[in-house]
């Protein structure tokens, strides 16, 4: 079964963004959920892909998907990232707790940083960042309106609001911190064009 759209979109974004990256791609994760989701997405990447649960094996990677930084170890792992390496970080915000992925025996993370904390850490480590949120407050509201309309037997309007919800799914900037799942794109400052 596909994951919820929040994770589906976040995973697709990381796979798309790294597809044409030159050099070796690393995946830093110790979550079975992310391993299971990312492996089939990355199996056709032209560049070699290396999965690891510590930073050391990824020393010669030029791009790393990190899913997902945990509060106790994020800062120290960030310090071990190879220089000149572009990072794509997936993190859960508080609203992610309502997603089914978090109600299984193996949730995506145990103590996720969240996008706000992660943004501070990454900027402090000398990266420029861009933050994307999956399922904005607006799209959550549109989805709720759609469900309400369906309960009122206005399935025609419910379908339109569902389409509106999907069109507003991705947000950037501060709104990303309110989304259940966020993706941070981090580039080392001195190499940002």
């Amino acid at each position, binding site marked *: 079964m*596909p994951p919820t759209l929040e994770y*589906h979109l976040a995973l697709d974004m990381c796979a*798309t963004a790294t*597809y044409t990256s030159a050099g070796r791609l690393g995946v830093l994760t110790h979550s079975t959920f992310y391993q299971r989701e990312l492996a089939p997405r990355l199996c*056709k990447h032209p560049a070699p892909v290396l999965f690891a649960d510590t930073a050391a094996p990824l020393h010669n990677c030029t791009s790393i998907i990190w899913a997902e930084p945990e509060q106790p170890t994020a800062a120290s792992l960030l310090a071990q990232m190879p220089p000149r390496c572009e990072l794509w970080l997936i993190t859960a915000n508080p609203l992610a707790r309502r997603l089914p992925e978090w109600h299984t025996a193996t949730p995506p993370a145990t103590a996720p940083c969240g996008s706000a904390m992660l943004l501070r850490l990454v900027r402090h480590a000398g990266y420029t960042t861009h933050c994307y949120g999956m399922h904005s407050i607006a799209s959550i509201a549109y989805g709720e309106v759609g469900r309400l309309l369906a309960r009122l037997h206005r*399935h*025609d309007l419910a379908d*339109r609001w569902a389409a509106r919800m999907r069109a507003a*799914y991705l947000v950037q900037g501060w709104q990303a911190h309110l989304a259940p799942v966020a993706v941070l794109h981090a580039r080392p400052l001195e190499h940002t064009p």
Partner: protein
Amino acid sequence: MSSDALVPVVSRLATWLTTMRAPDGYSGPVAHWWQQCLQYTGAGIDWRYEGIITGYLHLYRYTRNPHWLAQACRAADDVVQAQLPDTRLPNSSFEQNPYPGGTPHEAACMLALLRLATILHQQGDLRWQTYLAVAGRNLWQHQIARLWDERARAFRDAPDVPSFVPNKAATLVQALLMLAHLTHDEHLITHYALPTLDVVLAHQVQGDLLDGAIYQNSFGQRRVPKFFPYYIARCIPALLAGYEVSSEPRYLAAAQRALNFILRWRTPDGSLPQVIYTSGRVSRYPCWIAATGDIITAMHLLQPHGSPADPTPTLHWLLQGQLPSGGFRTAHGFAEHITQRTPADLPEFRDLLPVCGWNDKAFACLSGLLEPAAAQHVTDTEPLPVCELACQFRRQPMVYHEDSQQIVLRQGQQIHYQWQKGAAWPSVCTPLMYLK
């Protein structure tokens, strides 16, 4: 429309299909009513194979040209080589890709393999056994073992949810009837196929404005009050197949009433609304174009049974949707999915985007309409011009570009989307393109 006039249309489409091949199958982004799949663009082992293989088999049957049989076998081999140890297919979820276990996609693939196996068997070509074995494994070990609900006497849409989707179950019934024919297994007909068709019949509306319509789906006893003419048309071949094996007139009558419902909602331009609701309200947009191939096929299937349906308006609607690049447009009116207002002249990107899993419906339909003499002139090596068309996306004017190597959406100098044909992911996909 004369058969000769269809030759260049089918040739361009067959050529376009060859441009969409990745090493492991037919690839490309997907635009759909339910969800978009613009990110994963690798091979999808889904219902696109039903129409692709069927179309090649039509061409082979009419011409006996071994090239078309080879094309059908190459497509079938994509499915064979992709089959997972648990018998499912990877990336079989179409608009939800990349995931296995897609419905009705895996059943549609198996139906295509069995159509091919039938022809190979008739010719004494031993490859039929491979295709039969692959289809048999999926149908028995996945579809029947995991989706059959003995209490409901029908196939579920998901193993853990008491759900039923008539059009998906109908595709599975078609595959099971074909498997029963090849393996002489009457039990498949009596225990699985016909009881499932009876549940489809129970989802058909009797009387009133919606007479003949088939509910889109149900959860337990709760029916979802939506009626998609396209999906209702996809029930018709299975109902006819059920009638042919059982001689039970209720299946034929249901198919005829389903088509009558579709015809009542057809507009003079030949198009069909996307959804009709119990109140009689309609969500017209996006109106399918390439997919109407399945609706035309359903009309033709019913003609020998006395149906007066004239497919011509819908055929014209389909044919006006062929792009210079050879593929057919997906739809009309994606930009108004939310508002349901009459679309502006400028098509939306997803309207133009030709999708393998919709074009296969056009391919199967149009190749089936050819006269054998005309089919001799079909090729899949037509020179295809570069296609540059003005379009819009999120209300912004853009340009759609397609050639044999790539599909590009750009706004001025900025490229928003670029997919190299055959690649598993697009090389450019700006945040604007992240709508699901």
